[in-house]
């Protein structure tokens, strides 16, 4: 029999992930108006993702590090491929059709960018010097730029954030951090002009959603109504009127948290946030106890990126951040994101399990 130890898995993290995924299925069942098919499809995706997790847990940190630049290059080529021969779904060109499966290179990039940056930074001495930081920024911005033109602003932001987290964790000097912030601030006006009209509108809407309650403000308002009308205890599972009467758009995907919050109230929100924090915290503790720098950087970056997903999604649903199309990690309906995340957790578990081998 395999035990958790021989499979290089981490018990507490695995239990928390399973618990969260199961909760996700429960919420999807409600958000899909009790559609068993939808829930079963998601359950199958969860199973596939768990398999990926277990497989990746077996890969040694050394192999991961060695493969990092190659994976990055493959993902980069695939991203370029998307630009030319990609499949357009819902107006965005994000998919590569590989015959058997459709594949979203930007999802692969979510793993490849932090891996590549961690690989890059650990090639030299830490803390990284100016050239090294600049190289890391380039490794981050090039794929992000390719994703923005798909267009997929949400993923691009997550790529930049994951790359920058690695840079931050590497112990980069504070003055470089200041410079980076200044650089992004200086770029902001250009980025604003690069945004499409609807993207600009989303950011403006944030400040006054009621200016156009039936247009651009509709999603925000309806989600806030769903959340606010839940109160402390919520309306009960399957009882959310906002959700079930179709007032919440994208209620199975990006706005699934509004469904959850409507039905389970502030108590449910608190429990879910605590569960997420436990997962993030557990990963950070594991990173903390890992001796080897590449692993530590990657584990920390993956965990913090995971948190950032949560933050952006909840912020967007509750109306404090613009709508950027980031799903709620491990809960939103959809397979690719779950696969990437679970793969990441597999890598974290694997690196942690072999932490002593590095010494």
């Amino acid at each position, binding site marked *: 029999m395999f035990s958790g130890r021989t499979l290089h898995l981490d018990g507490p993290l695995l239990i928390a992930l399973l618990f969260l995924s199961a909760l996700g299925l429960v919420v999807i069942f409600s958000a899909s108006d009790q559609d068993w098919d939808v829930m079963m499809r998601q359950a199958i995706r969860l199973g596939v993702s768990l398999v990926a997790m277990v497989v990746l847990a077996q890969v040694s940190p050394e192999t991961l590090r060695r493969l990092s630049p190659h994976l990055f290059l493959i993902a980069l080529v695939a991203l370029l491929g998307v630009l030319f021969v990609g499949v357009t779904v819902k107006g965005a060109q994000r998919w590569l059709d590989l015959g058997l499966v459709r594949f979203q290179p930007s999802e692969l990039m979510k793993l490849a960018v932090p891996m590549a940056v961690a690989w890059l930074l650990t090639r030299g001495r*830490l803390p990284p010097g100016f050239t090294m930081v600049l190289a890391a920024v380039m490794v981050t911005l090039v794929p992000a730029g390719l994703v923005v033109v798909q267009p997929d602003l949400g993923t691009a932001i997550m790529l930049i954030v994951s790359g920058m987290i690695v840079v931050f964790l590497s*112990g980069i000097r504070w003055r470089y951090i200041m410079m980076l912030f200044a650089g992004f601030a200086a770029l902001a006006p250009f980025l604003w002009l690069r945004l499409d009209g609807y993207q600009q509108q989303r950011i403006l809407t944030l400040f006054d959603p009621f200016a156009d309650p039936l247009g651009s403000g509709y999603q925000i308002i309806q989600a806030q109504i769903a959340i606010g009308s839940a109160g*402390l205890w919520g309306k009960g599972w399957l009882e959310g009127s906002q959700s079930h009467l179709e*007032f919440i758009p994208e209620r199975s995907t990006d706005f699934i948290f509004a469904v959850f919050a409507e039905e389970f109230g502030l108590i449910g929100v608190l429990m879910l946030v605590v569960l997420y924090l436990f997962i993030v915290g557990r990963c950070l503790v594991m990173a903390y106890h890992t001796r080897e720098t590449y692993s530590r950087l990657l584990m*920390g970056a993956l965990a913090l990126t995971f948190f950032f997903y949560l933050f952006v999604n*909840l912020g967007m649903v509750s109306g404090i951040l613009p709508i950027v199309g980031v799903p709620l990690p491990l809960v939103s309906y959809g397979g690719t994101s779950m696969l990437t995340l679970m793969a990441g957790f597999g890598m974290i578990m694997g690196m942690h399990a072999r932490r002593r081998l590095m010494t």
Partner: protein
Amino acid sequence: MAANKLPTDRTFADDAVRGRIRIAAGLALTLALALVWRFYVLQVSEYERYQTLSLDNHIRIQALPPVRGLVLDRNGVVLAQNTAVHILQVVPEKVDDLDAMLQQVDALVGLTPAEVSAFRARVEKQPAFEKVLLKAKLDDVQTATLAVNEYRLPGVTLEAVLHRDYPEGSLTAHVLGYVGRISESDQATLDASAYQGVRSTGKIGIEKQYEGALLGRSGFEQVEIDAHGRTLRTISRSSAAPGHTLSLTLDVDLQRVAREALGNRRGAVVAIAPSTGEVLTIVSSPSFDPNLFVDGIDQETYDALRGLDDRPLLNRALYGRYAPGSTIKPVIAEAIIDAGIDPQEQVYCPGWYTLPDNTRRYRCWRKTGHGPVNLYSAIEQSCDVYFYEMGRRLGIDVMSDWLSRFGLGQITGVDLPQEPTGLVPTRQWKRANRNESWYPGEDLITVIGQGFLMVTPMQLARMTATLANRGFPVQPRILLSKEDSLSGEEISPAQPVEKLERVVDTSLDMVVAAMTAVMHSPRGTGRASGRRSPYQIAGKTGTAQVIAIGQDEEYDESVIPEKYHDHALFIAFAPADKPQIAIAVVVENGGSGAKAAAPIARKVMDRFFQKQLQRAALKGKSNVFG
């Protein structure tokens, strides 16, 4: 060893990366707390606000329009009812291509250009998610055609609605009036809360007069809707209360007789039960189909109706103003007796009359004259010369006082909207309106019911009823009773009938006898219509000039255009001693009252008593004439 390949910069990395992980963890925790705070604000601090918004979102209050009250005649014949019809409505938001949709619908059921343009105008005005009327009143075939094709026409809905219907059509059009779609000017005057979900309102006639009773009370329904506005379920409901059922004093049967007797001539017939004031018949001719107005009449038809010289929309019985002619002579007779003039005093009629100090000849209708006449024979033969003399003696002050006492020149108080007063001239009136003093010659014109004097057929009928009542006036009324449609409770009498003072102290018996002679004596002007009547009729003919005939001109119907022919008038009540029906008839340009108007009254009265007999036979009574 792998350890050698992986750089482990112990001295720095251990501390720095771990330090950064601590900082990052702290940041993450702070952001998480910020999120929790945000949710606390939404779900606890502002809970009530969002709960209200949520309820508003998916709970909608819908009005349930009440069913409009029925209108029946005195025998229970339905005059106004509600029938279910199908209407075609469109939600523009759900239609991809409006023009294509219109073409499809046109191919299926046919649309008139007027319907299409009215629809487009409404689409402009209304929000895109609201239903807009495309076609009202589909027949069964059209309804079925659309019902099977509805699935191919997204946004097009077929709906069954109750629709006002007047089964007697033009026969009762003027008195009943009609309902029409609530217009913008209606919206300004109507109480919006009482008209929740109601699409039409009474425009004229009884429909307008008793709008409040007929309307009923709207009900309300709380329904749950989804984001697309579809109704999912009813949460609570308070039913609408239907309007009262109104029973009218009218007898459709008599109405029909009067209408047929009038034929295609312009005119009016009003019959009243003198003891109660109940209006048995109110007919105006020509008439129109009130059903045209229910769904909004199209401009073309409306203009055509309005443009006609015959003015079919005008209710002549109430709004027509006519010179009464000789029909007022019985009232003048009362004034004569009251003034102390001996009714037996004879006046010689050579066929004309002149005032002292004046050579102008005032003609009697009979050129050869009546010879010596007294009051009785002057009424019987309608001698103008006798009345010229009396008019001179009485003067306008006395005459207008008496005419007013019998209700001329003032509203009768009948329960129809906007009744006109008509006009009984006085010295003061002429001074104020014409800035002239009263001339003695005008006494003579007034005494034979010409000149400034203007009365409505309703006023004439009331005057006749007052004569029939031997001086007790009545207030004509059309509403017999109201019945609460839910409880079946009779609200009767619907309006308190005002007890009026006796207006005449003198006995009218002599005048009534003279009026009976009009109908039944060999010299009576109305004898042709009184012939072989099983009941005694008291009547008075009248012929009113429409244009002035010059001093030496002849009135010759054959050479004068029809619209300048004399108006024919007739008043009567029967049985003369115990009257049950009083009637006034006006036939515009009908020529002589005796020939044109009196036969109509006779037909109505015959039918009235025939029905009385039938009813009495059923009840086993033998004598219905008193």
